[in-house]
């Protein structure tokens, strides 16, 4: 079975550093890289009738934006570095979606960048810290 590494991306500096590191590890272990971008979304939020009617189009727009801005650059870099890579875009809660993807794809390890320590993150915990506590496989935080 092929080794799989998961890399959540959001276009930030941290996520770029994580990509560089993950590509190294993937090359060294001849593993496949899965780049994922999660669009925060909840099935239990409330919409006005207007928003409901535009949702389908908005969703397509969100996916296109994520592809163009976050995933395409990653794909290009991986290709240049000769690392095999697949792209995923999902809607939902980031922690849930990443954990689900880990079990679905039998991921061996997760790489992700550390965000700056803002007051919000210290109070409520960042995605990385939540993931460290809940993920079933090792999570490497790239500073």
């Amino acid at each position, binding site marked *: 079975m092929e080794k799989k590494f998961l890399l959540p991306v959001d276009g930030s500096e941290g996520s770029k550093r994580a990509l560089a590191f993950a590509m190294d590890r993937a090359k060294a272990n001849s593993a496949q890289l899965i780049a994922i971008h999660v*669009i925060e*979304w909840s*099935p*239990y*939020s*409330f*919409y*006005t*009738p*207007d*928003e*409901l*009617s*535009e*949702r*389908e*189009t908005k*969703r*397509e727009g*969100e*996916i296109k934006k994520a592809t163009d801005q976050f995933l395409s650059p990653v794909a290009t870099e991986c290709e240049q570095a000769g690392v095999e890579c697949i792209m995923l875009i*999902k*809607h*939902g809660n980031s922690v849930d979606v990443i954990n*689900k993807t880990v079990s679905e794809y039998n991921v061996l390890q997760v790489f992700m960048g550390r965000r700056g320590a803002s007051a919000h993150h210290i109070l409520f915990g960042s995605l990385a810290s939540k993931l460290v506590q809940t993920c079933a496989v090792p999570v490497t935080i790239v500073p």
Partner: protein
Amino acid sequence: MVLKRWFVSLMLLVVAANAYAAGIDETINNITAPLAEVFGKIVFFKIPIFGAQLPVVVLWLIIGAVFFTFYTGFVNVRGFKHAIALVRGDYADPNDAGEVSHFQALATAVSGTVGIGNIGGVAVAVTVGGPGATFWMILAGFLGMSTKFVECTLGVKYRTKNPDGSVSGGPMFYLKKGFTEIGMPNLGKWLGGFFAIGIALGAMGIGNMFQSNQAYVQLNYVTGGMLDGLGWLVGLVLALVVFLVIVGGIQSIAKVTEKIVPFMAVFYCVFAIIVIAMNGAYLPEAIANIFSGAFTGEGIAGGALGAMIIGFQRAVFSNEAGIGSASIAHAAVKTKQPVTEGFVSLLEPFIDTIVICTITALVIGTSQVANPDFAGDATGVAMTSAAFERQISWFPYVLAVAAMMFAFSTMISWSYYGLKGWSYLFGESNSSKKTYNVIFCVFVALGCMVQLGPILDISDAMVFLICVPNILGLYFLAPVVKKELKAYMALLDSGEIKKYKQ
């Protein structure tokens, strides 16, 4: 620029209103009352039966609801559990995440129907129809679940994607497309147009004037009559806020309301239950009154039949089953199985009428048993408010805020429903949309200036306009829904449609 022009005309209206000062309320009332009466008489024809006056519209809706209940094999009972599973997301395909969820469609539709009718309309029913009206209201809610199932399934099945990527649906679309499919394109076009006119006009009554009127009444009540004769001012303020949202495009106000309303509804129910518990000693008698009143109709004009008519009438206007409005909201959902939206929508009359209206009726009922004269001569929202006040002195203030919110969210929803009818007739161009929205705002202001009686007459009459083509169409298209339902149930039984969540 256009926006500015509209704003200037609105301001001119304010100035003109100021000139008349307090007298304007009376003037407007004097002008509209006879109009409403004539209009009501023509559209809202009543058949006298055994001394009771049976409005044709109520008969029309109830016969429809009974028919659809039997025709779908009591889908309102059979489908209830499945509806809850769908809303919980048990059957939601993770790959569809990001699309409108069943829960979201339900929440939006419920925000549109949970309005003043649930607070004030129930009081009207109990005042005019006695406690027994509650029984018939619940029955009408139960039957209405089947009508909703049929209309919302069709709404999704025949949804239409606009060039700008947004989605439109609802009766005008299923009437047009559905009738084309069954080989009657001309009748369908005609009925669809009829419905579109009906909903564009009807939105001004049930979803607009009635709401703003009752919100004003409650506000006036809690301020101790300080706003007497100032209905025009409250009306203008309300109209201005609605204007900002639907013409000015300030969606954030609508978004905030949309988020608060569901919590408000829960909050309202919790406090209502507390009041009922505090009135606990009178609860058995209040419940007994509901049942005995339903069949004896003591002291009610038209007896038991009179109570039944009132109960049915208020239930229909509260949960909007058969009116086709929810079908417009549900059409936004993208699903391979339109029937799933039908299932979800049958929860709306349940939440709206069987839960919330019944709770309100019990708050009033128990208070009445404790003190038959607790509300004085207050009716509508003011009566409900007095019933709460007996136990929780500060609750009328909360109720005033809740009433405002409910009224506001219902008005926003209805402006959308009405607009969909309007743009079906006049196209999706921005100028035509703006015209409708401005007219809508004017009616918001008008609603606060006139008396409840004529407003109810106008609302009821307009609703009739809407449900004639809709229910007629539903009869013709019911076989389509039945086929969909059968196919879906077969897939469900065979396990082809499976739960994603365990």
